[in-house]
């Protein structure tokens, strides 16, 4: 297993390198010229000379490959340079805004697990019954609305009509309950489906029949089946953590949380390319790291299955 994890780590290094290339490539694709945008902010009506000067100052007149190498060699050590917008070091703003978003994503992850696991079990154990059908229908409804709208609805219900929570702020953990629920509800809707079908798959497999024939208690069998059924759910939960951070801007807008999503949207609006690159890279690294963690957990849960997770062509 350790060998397996080490070889995955090697792949991970390749993937991360690819991510830096993609990040840099994506932001440089835009037709909006960052130098032009900054020059406009500085001089209102910049002359061609001033734009050239700004371009030179930002190093944007270098060939793209050179820019990439310069950017990468600094980014590796966590040095993202100064924001075009504010002139301040990006790393400060980044670490400040990452905090609330990480809180939001962690709480959302917790809620997602708390919703998906019991509801998945309930749905699978009462297969075809009223509970199963209602959970199915509820799932379709939740999958069909954007999470920020769920956020608004929760806000209307539990902050306006029944004033249990405040409508904005990110000071204590209580402020994150509604936003995290808004993220967790649609995510769980998809997870419940997957967990339910892998549970059913487990109950229908030969090892359960054999265990029953040997007279092993149903509780022990349930334990065996959930161990069998958990890996796909763990993968999804890991992915959803990264998705939450990437899509956090919407929820942050709704609940006025000063997180990395809002920071990224502001940077996108003013074409602050260094900030965009930094945000995208950080989010991508978190995403990759959490997915890897999920893989490790799965390897521990089910070492055998892990060796052939992909259908390779033979």
């Amino acid at each position: 297993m350790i060998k397996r994890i080490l070889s995955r780590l090697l792949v991970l290094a390749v993937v991360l390198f690819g991510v830096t290339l993609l990040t840099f490539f994506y932001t440089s694709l835009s037709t909006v010229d960052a130098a032009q945008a900054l020059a406009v902010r500085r001089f209102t009506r910049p002359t061609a000379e001033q734009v050239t000067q700004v371009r030179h100052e930002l190093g944007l007149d270098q060939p793209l490959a050179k820019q990439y190498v310069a950017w990468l060699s600094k980014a590796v050590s966590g040095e993202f340079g100064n924001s075009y917008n504010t002139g301040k070091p990006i790393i400060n703003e980044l670490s400040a805004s990452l905090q609330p978003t990480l809180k939001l994503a962690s709480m959302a992850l917790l809620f997602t697990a708390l919703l998906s696991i019991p509801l998945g079990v309930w749905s699978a154990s009462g297969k075809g019954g009223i509970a199963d059908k209602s959970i199915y229908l509820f799932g379709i409804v939740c999958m069909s609305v954007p999470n920020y709208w769920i956020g608004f609805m929760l806000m209307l219900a539990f902050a306006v009509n029944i004033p249990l929570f405040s409508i904005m702020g990110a000071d204590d953990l209580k402020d994150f309950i509604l936003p995290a629920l808004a993220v967790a509800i649609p995510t769980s809707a998809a997870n419940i489906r997957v967990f339910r079908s892998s549970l059913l798959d487990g109950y229908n497999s030969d090892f359960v029949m054999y265990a029953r024939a040997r007279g092993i208690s149903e509780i022990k069998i349930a334990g065996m089946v959930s161990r069998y059924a958990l890996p796909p759910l763990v993968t999804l939960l890991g992915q959803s953590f990264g998705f939450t951070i990437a899509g956090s801007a919407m929820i942050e807008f709704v609940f006025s949380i000063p997180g990395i999503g809002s920071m990224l949207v502001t940077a996108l609006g003013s074409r602050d390319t260094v900030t965009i690159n930094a945000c995208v890279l950080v989010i991508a690294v978190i995403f990759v790291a959490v997915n890897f963690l999920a893989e490790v957990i799965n390897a521990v849960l089910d070492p055998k299955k892990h060796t052939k997770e992909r259908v390779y062509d033979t």
Partner: protein
Amino acid sequence: MIHKILRKPQAVIGLAMMLTVFAVMVFAPAFAPNDPEKINIMQKFAEPSEQYPLGTDDMGRCIASRLIYGARVSMSIALPTIAAIAVISVLLATVCAYIGGIVDRLFVIVSDIFMALPPFLVAMTLVGLFESKALSIVISIAAAMWVWNAQVVRTYVIREKNKPYIITCQMSGCSQMRIIIRHIIPNIFPHLLVLYSTGLSGVIIMISSYAFLGLGLETGTAEWGAMLVGANKLVFSHPELIVYPGLCILFAAAGFNLFGEALRDICDPKEN
């Protein structure tokens, strides 16, 4: 196939909802009582009346008309987007998976790299790509989503190509092109329909999220997500203005989800 769909109530309801959305999209000018973008400051937050069936918003624009035109805006971006995703993912995944060997391995590695970025992140980064804002949204969502769909298509193709009938085709001298186009794609077609029908609902939600963040569309466009921009200010005074656009998104997206999921049950009865 069609017979099976018509016998499943969930599929029929989903189909009916889809058709309703298409009808509203096509005949929006006929349904809408007013011009959705006409600003009338004198009529700010008007109560529902005969002229304004659902009242007006903070700029005095007719809400009912904006919701109706919203279907047109959303769908006219969502349909080309899902078409682009479908073409790219089917083409790449089918060819790579069918050829197999080193090409397929390379495909897996490249898609691993692309999948290391969450789709919404990619879409946001790419949004200012072209002069045309609608085109930018189509391209950026397609660029973000193709790889996730291609992965799924790839597993379908690999499952299909090892079936005996394909081997028989190869032995009887069918060209590879013919096997892919005449045999593999038609046989995985129902699965693809499921994938892209549920995918379309995801795209609709993604477009509304874009609009909500104020990225992408022109300001003032009658789009469901755009109608929620700055809605925080309305929670106490006009909560109904927040509820309506969400219900429209729900109706449109749920139609495609209901239909897609029903189709999935028909395709793989085993899963249930």
